[in-house]
């Protein structure tokens, strides 16, 4: 039932440029409408009215409408050029989640199809309608209500998985990156993230394709012929710049002196993962092997990147500074150039930062280095570093909105992200998504388009990872079937804002009646945390449940004690069990790896 209420009730894309004259029927402008079985006159009514009123309001306020509420439904809105998107959910869904859902949907479309206008010039409406429908159903199939609230990535339940396997997945990705045509990648198992080098947003986009091919594979018996596949995808300039910028890894430099050969960690790694040794030794490219380093999830440099000014390269992609590693590639793109630039920038970063003072240097006015600095978290956890960039944008615009936040619009963070996406609607650069599937396990890599024609590179990547993937799959297959533990005397949810991952002991399945108060409280508190930066801790109690929520820059944690008598008079009482929640949460959650101290 809860799952049902999550579902988006309406989604449409309306193209006002198709309805300009008095006599043009509204239906001409409807590019896609979900649910498709909606009677055409109702489709016309909704599209016509919402787009019309949206235009009127944006004229009055000189700004596009972002959100529109009716008594029964609420709509996230995006207006861009003549296009008008609206995604409607029932009134109970948190505003912020509706906005994020729409942003994700549009971003996924652009990721796989390029610019919306061009797509509609090159394809029929029917073809694209099928795609919108697929992306929409994909997004709605997230595993639980909590995942929807946080828009979090579906990850493998790390408590059931040997940490060595996670490490192994990370190493596979790094090994692949030794090929200069490989930008970044992720390893997925049965539709869940095992390891990723990309930002949560980018990982989420890649996963859409994976889950589609996964369904296909399950239907097709011939899984071998689908083992390796590829598809064209489109990255925004900021995403690309970000992936192409070389790591400026202060930590790795200080920990492992930059010897061009024989990275010190290599031997240690090959001891634990014997099959890695061979791939490592295949390495002939000394540059990227430098990047093998493991920094803590949140290293100091990560933290400091929060205080950086917003990266100008994102704000102004049209005018890259002279040293920019990425020449404008929007049309007639020359990937050779890009590659050259990539090498150049490697060179630059190695030399300019050689004295270990690189980070401070980066704080200078060079936007290239600002971009780089986000990578300082280290290659091993690319996700972390990327997360910073995206959250940085969120935080930046959040500042502007902090004053309004209290007003209860509840779109603070979503709007923050949205601003980022506005910029992201700038030129898209085609790249290739390469997938290598071993049953439920998938290696997904973002590669330069000519990777596919470069047989040597393909062979290298394929063979270097094949054995490891097989081994990994064999291990995962045996353990991953563990059912989520039944909630004990307490419920918790822990959201990592940087990696966009969620840890919880909630099953997310049916029988959520008991859990519903927790989910409701979590959703409400999450909204308040998003709207007010200074809010750190909260306890809220209704007649049925008391929930404790706490957050830091990097995480949000929610905790509810199950059972026990909640009888109280509501009058202030320090012996009240509700006020013991913080200390209980601190103790109970330690064993889940959540440290609230």
């Amino acid at each position, binding site marked *: 039932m809860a799952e049902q209420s999550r579902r988006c009730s309406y989604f449409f894309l309306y193209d006002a440029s198709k309805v300009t004259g008095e006599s043009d029927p509204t239906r001409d402008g409807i590019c896609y409408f979900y649910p498709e079985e909606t009677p055409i006159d109702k489709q016309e009514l909704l599209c016509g009215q919402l787009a019309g009123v949206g235009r009127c309001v944006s004229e009055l306020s000189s*700004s596009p409408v972002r959100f529109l509420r009716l*008594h029964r439904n609420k709509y996230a809105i995006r207006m861009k050029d003549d296009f008008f998107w609206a995604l409607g959910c029932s009134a109970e869904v948190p505003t912020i989640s509706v906005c994020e859902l729409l942003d994700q949907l549009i971003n996924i479309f652009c990721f796989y199809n390029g610019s919306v206008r061009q797509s509609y010039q090159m394809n029929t409406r029917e073809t694209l309608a099928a795609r919108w429908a697929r992306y929409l159903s994909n997004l709605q199939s997230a595993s639980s209500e909590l995942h929807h609230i946080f828009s979090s990535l579906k990850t493998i339940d790390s408590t059931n998985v040997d940490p060595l396997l996670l490490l192994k997945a990370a190493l596979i990705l790094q090994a692949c990156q030794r090929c200069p045509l490989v930008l970044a990648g992720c390893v997925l198992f049965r539709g869940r993230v095992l390891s990723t080098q990309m930002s949560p947003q980018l990982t989420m986009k890649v996963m859409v394709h994976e889950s589609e091919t996964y369904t296909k594979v399950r239907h097709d018996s011939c899984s071998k012929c689908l083992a390796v596949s590829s598809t064209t995808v489109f990255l925004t300039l900021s995403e690309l710049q970000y992936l192409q910028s070389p790591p400026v890894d202060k930590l790795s430099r200080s920990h492992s002196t930059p010897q061009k050969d024989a990275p010190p960690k290599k031997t240690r790694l090959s001891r634990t993962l014997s099959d890695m040794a061979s791939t490592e030794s295949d390495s002939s490219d000394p540059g990227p092997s430098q990047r093998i380093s493991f920094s803590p999830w949140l290293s100091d440099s990560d933290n400091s990147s929060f205080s950086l000014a917003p990266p100008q390269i994102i704000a102004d992609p049209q005018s890259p500074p002279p040293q920019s590693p990425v020449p404008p590639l929007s049309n007639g793109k020359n990937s050779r150039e890009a590659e050259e630039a990539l090498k150049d920038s490697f060179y630059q970063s190695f030399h300019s930062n050689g004295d270990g003072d690189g980070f401070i240097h980066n704080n200078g006015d060079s936007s290239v280095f600002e971009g780089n600095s986000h990578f300082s978290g280290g290659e091993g956890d690319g996700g972390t570093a990327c997360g910073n960039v995206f959250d940085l944008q969120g935080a930046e615009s959040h500042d502007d909105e902090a004053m309004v936040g209290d*007003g209860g619009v509840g779109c603070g963070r979503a709007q923050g992200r949205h601003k980022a996406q506005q910029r992201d609607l700038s030129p898209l650069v085609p790249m290739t998504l390469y997938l290598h599937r071993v049953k439920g396990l998938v290696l997904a890599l973002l590669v330069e388009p000519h990777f596919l024609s470069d047989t040597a590179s393909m062979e290298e990547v394929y063979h270097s990872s094949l054995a490891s993937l097989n081994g990994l799959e064999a291990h995962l297959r045996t353990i991953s079937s563990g059912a989520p533990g039944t909630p004990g005397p307490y419920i918790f949810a822990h959201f990592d804002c940087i990696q966009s991952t969620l840890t919880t002991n909630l099953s997310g399945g049916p029988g959520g009646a008991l859990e519903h108060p927790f989910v409701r409280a979590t959703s409400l508190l999450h909204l308040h945390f998003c709207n007010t930066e200074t809010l*750190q801790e909260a*306890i*809220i109690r*209704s007649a049925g449940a008391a929930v404790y929520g706490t957050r830091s820059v990097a995480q949000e944690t929610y905790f509810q004690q199950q059972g026990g008598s909640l009888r109280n008079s509501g*009058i*202030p009482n320090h012996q009240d069990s509700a006020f013991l929640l913080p200390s209980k949460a601190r103790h109970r959650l330690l064993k889940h790896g959540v440290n609230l101290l």
Partner: protein
Amino acid sequence: MKCLLIASESAEVLFYWTDPEFQQNIQNQYGASQEEGHGLPAFEDSISTLFAPIIISCSTMVDRLGDSYTSFTTENNHVYVLHQFDECLYIAVNGDGEEGEDDLRRKIYVMKKMIEVLFGMVTLSSNLIRRELRPQDTEQRARLWKHLQSLLETYSHLRENDQSFLVEAVERLIHPMLCEQCIEFLEKRLVQQLNSSTERAGEEVLHAFILVHTKLLAFFSSRNASTLATSDLLALIIMTQNMYPSNTDVDDPGPESMSGSGPESFYTPEPSPTDRDSGSSDKPEGVTTPVFEFMDPDIQMAEDSLQTLEGPPPDPSMPRRVFLEISSKEGLYPMMPHSMYCLPLWPGIKLVLLTKIPTNNVASSVYKYLEAFAKLEKRLSEGQEGYAATRGQLTIHDLRSKLDKFIKALGPSDLQSAQLQNAWTEFKNRAFGRGGPGFTKDLIPWCKNMKTQLCSIYRQCFLVDSGPGSVPQRLSPGLQERALTMVQEKLVDWKDFLLVKSKRNITMVSYLEDFPGLIHFICVDRSTGQMIAPSLNITEHASSELGKGPVAHFIKSKVWSFVSRSRDFLRKGYSTITLRDGDFYFCYFLWFENETGYKLEAGDIPILPDDSAPIGMLAWDYYRKLLRYYSKNHQGEVVKCYELLTVHLGVIPTEIILQHCRQLASKLWEPSRNPLL
């Protein structure tokens, strides 16, 4: 960038208010096509043109989808809130980040409340209220709109600066001895004397109260009066504050700084000669209520010329007609006519008298009939027919004979009663006649017509001046003068004390020793609609307890935002909230007690949708409904509802904070249990 607009379904502007930024914005968008000289109609036109697509889309959505817009948010964080009351669409806009959706919705509801207080049951007929809000005569329209605009501004100013309007409960002056003396004085001397005078012209003083700025010093209700609802009392305070604005920003109150002249000075000018010494020129620049500071020069000019056109200002001793709720044995009567006399004792101190007017029973009859026809209409539209449709408190035959008598008593002398007579004859023919449709759906239009005619009668009786020449209905000016003098004599020695006391009602200093780390608290008794809180004076000139300037402002803004946050949670069913926000720790508790002070178990609190009416007591009494809801499980017991909100320093251990809260909750009402209301 703020705006509030009331429009009819056909996009006709029934009222608007904008701040100068919004007006500028509209004018820029509308282009320079506007001609100088007639600012008001031209601006009205452009605002109507620009909002028309939204208004029309609203009615299309209602008609075809059965749903309507409640809000829009743009990427630059402009917020639009829409609410439809019958056929009037209210739109409130904010583009400067100072108000959120909830604030705007509250503003809309408050505006509606003020219109109800001013127009009573005329608001029940869309047709009539539309004409009432938008008089044909442009000068009359300008005058009415300006009055409403200034009420709205007064309210906004109070909501932003006065804690009692923040939490929507009445704040009393805490001085038990003086309060008691004053109540006794009001009862034994003032009201008795007024009600036994021959100069009262048939009016009867029901309530008398003394306000020091917005705070209540004493309140007395005569024995046969019903309780004055908190909602009405708060609305009346807004009105008195609008007539005689307090300059609350000046710390040291004195007759000179308390200007008695304000936005309404031409509308309801200074009635009292005692006020003559304080002209508007004494008002310090820039710190007054921001009512007219940003006045558009065109409008100002138009208004100025209006005043000269109008001739002499209205008689200061003329009472205000206000429509207030009455609860009697027979039930609840909303919007019953009263006369309000607001007599300024000294700047900042007012005596308010509420009287029952002689024709009061016409209003209650009209209400009963209106209710009967509304119920009948509802049943008919639900498809019930014949006898089933006519069930109700009043049987249809009762109604018939009573209404016959009522119309007869009105007399056919004037046009209005003649029209009612006709409508009633038509209705009877159709409902009871052999050839008529009887009690079926076809009768609905005739029900509607009866309702409109009844509202017209009500309007005729209570809203329209009896015309020039006739003697106005009121307590005689001499009697009013005597009342004023009596109270002035009583309070003359207290005057300065009261003005200071109203700024420093209770102070945090007295709590610091017992509650180290406590920064602020607000305690509200929702059953009586009263609140207690240490004063939070943010002034330019003197430092308050919270320190000076930015720190005090910061704490004030924190308190304001915490109140709105606690409402967000309350709306979703949470009655206990603690938050750690920056360097502060906030607590909010709502609980129920019975009459003996026994704490009742916390019950379920209804979960409301995001776009529900604002939580408070002024425009929509949430707490009355909450008490009714809660009392269902406590039959036969008087249930009381309390709220406590505290702000502590974040470094204080939580256990200590909670102990403080407990102590405050149990002690706060003890020293000051006054039979004030």
